């Protein structure tokens, strides 16, 4: 391949540059520029005489606003952990094939095609106050009063799980089934039990993929917007940071403040990603030590 053959010499000629330019220009103009512009206008508050950082100061002085960060973390973190653990459990169990594998994979991917509005309507109907689940449980005599599963954080967590699980599962299944089966066989031959195989052999190999999946699911859950509005309680317990940003932008028409909230949201995600990367580094060290000991 070209990459192996060449030393670090640059291989860009005119044609190559021409090939790259359109998409590069697009990303620069429509992604990088608005991003920087967003930071810029967040520093230009609506009130002219206020200081440069007055939007940020306002955000962190207003409990109604800064509490959205906590709300969002409390929604995103448990959801992410649940999605990743369940997907890992399932993908690990399915790594050597399973009955009706193709059908099952298709079913697990189906929620993608439902779309967030359909999913919300269905969750509201099925798990709602008068929904089938409550009717069934009451008819069976298991509960007396209907469970409140929607219009609160439980409903949103549930909706997020259904939306993010398919992606995470597909990623992990692809990742885990790509691991050489002979590693597992040799571990078994050397007398390792299923748990030891998972902990000492498979998990270190899965860990990098797991971290990527965790990061992606977390970032997607952190930005939750439509389901927090429809299944949740957008004025109260599920007022996430993206709702706060949206309200500033399209209800108050204060783009400067809205951009400041978007910047804060980006920084929170960045902070979470940094933590994830640090955890990953610790994990990698642990595994190399484990290998070194043998």
């Amino acid at each position, binding site marked *: 391949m070209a990459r192996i053959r060449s030393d670090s010499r640059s291989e860009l000629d005119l044609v190559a540059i021409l090939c790259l330019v359109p998409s590069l220009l697009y990303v620069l103009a429509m992604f990088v520029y608005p991003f920087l512009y967003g930071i810029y206008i967040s520093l230009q508050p609506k009130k002219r005489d206020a200081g440069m950082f007055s939007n940020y100061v306002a955000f962190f002085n207003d409990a109604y606003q800064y509490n959205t960060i906590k709300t969002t973390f409390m929604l995103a973190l448990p959801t992410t952990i649940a999605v990743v653990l369940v997907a890992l459990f399932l993908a690990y169990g399915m790594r050597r094939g399973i009955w009706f594998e193709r059908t099952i994979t298709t079913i697990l991917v189906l929620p993608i095609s439902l779309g967030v509005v359909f999913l919300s309507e*269905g969750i509201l109907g099925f798990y709602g106050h008068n929904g089938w689940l409550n009717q069934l449980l009451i008819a069976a005599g298991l509960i007396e009063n209907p469970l409140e599963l929607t219009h609160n954080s439980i409903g949103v967590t549930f909706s997020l799980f259904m939306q993010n699980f398919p992606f995470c599962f597909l*990623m992990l299944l692809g990742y885990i089934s790509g691991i050489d089966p002979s590693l597992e066989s040799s571990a078994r031959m050397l007398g390792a039990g299923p748990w030891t195989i998972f902990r000492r052999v498979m998990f270190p190999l899965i860990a990098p993929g797991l971290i990527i999946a965790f990061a992606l699911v977390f970032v997607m859950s952190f930005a939750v917007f439509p389901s927090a509005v429809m299944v949740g309680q957008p004025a109260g317990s599920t007022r996430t940071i993206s709702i706060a940003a949206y309200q500033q932008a399209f209800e108050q028409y204060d783009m400067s403040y809205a951009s400041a909230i978007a910047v804060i949201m980006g920084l929170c995600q960045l902070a979470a990603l940094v933590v994830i990367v640090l955890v990953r580094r610790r994990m990698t060290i642990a595994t190399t030590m484990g290998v070194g000991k043998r």
Partner: protein
Amino acid sequence: MRGRMWKLAIYLFLLGFILNLLGIVTHVVVSSFAKRWFGKPLPPAFTTDWFTYAWREFELSHVLFITLFIALAVVFIALAIGFPAAYVLARRNFNAKPILLLLYFLPLLIPQMTYGIPLATTLYGFGVGGTVLGVILAVLVPMVPLAVFILLPFFEQISLNLEWSAQMLGASRLQIFRRILLPLMLPGILTAGLLVLVNTISNFELAFLLAGGGSQTLVVALYYNVFAGGVRPVYSIDAMAVIYMCTVLSVLLVALRFVRPTQMVFRLDGKRN
């Protein structure tokens, strides 16, 4: 014994997942056919009126046309500018390549709501916010990188020797492109096109932030009608949701015929390591 318990747990989970999904889907479908439905396990009478109502009241023919137009435009542009970029990134080596890859990766990694708001501000500033063009421009931001990253491994599978031999036999760049790369890349183009199509139709955040009255895609129109509060009967919204599901499902099923999602994700992953 333990292995069997493990398998049992997996099947139980799958059963639970399927039942739950079935419950959610059936509820919406039943509701879309219900005449009136409150507090009973099943509605007392059924009707198909809500579909005609939704089709007429929500101007669905227009919304579907706009959705399809936006989706096809996004697929075409994403492929047109993503294809050459993926080719160069797969074949050439240069110093800025890791930075470039990161730059393409960022719009996929950063949630759309975060950059959507400043992007919307910018586009409204240029006067294209609220128009079909605005929606296309915004939705393209994550779709161009998506197309690049899907096409990349497909290019890497095509041996460079083919291009060299063609060159040696006197083929021009255009001939190499038309006679060799294009036919061999057909599966890749199909995969990328279908996945971009599915993702565009189901894209909510960016289309929502940029959509105006006449430029709403199906998801966005659906979302707005949920909040048209009291005016819209819930059954008609469910009917529209069913129409939405059928649209996306048919595209997705076509996609799954050509693409094995697991295989593709793995290739993408293998690339990054």
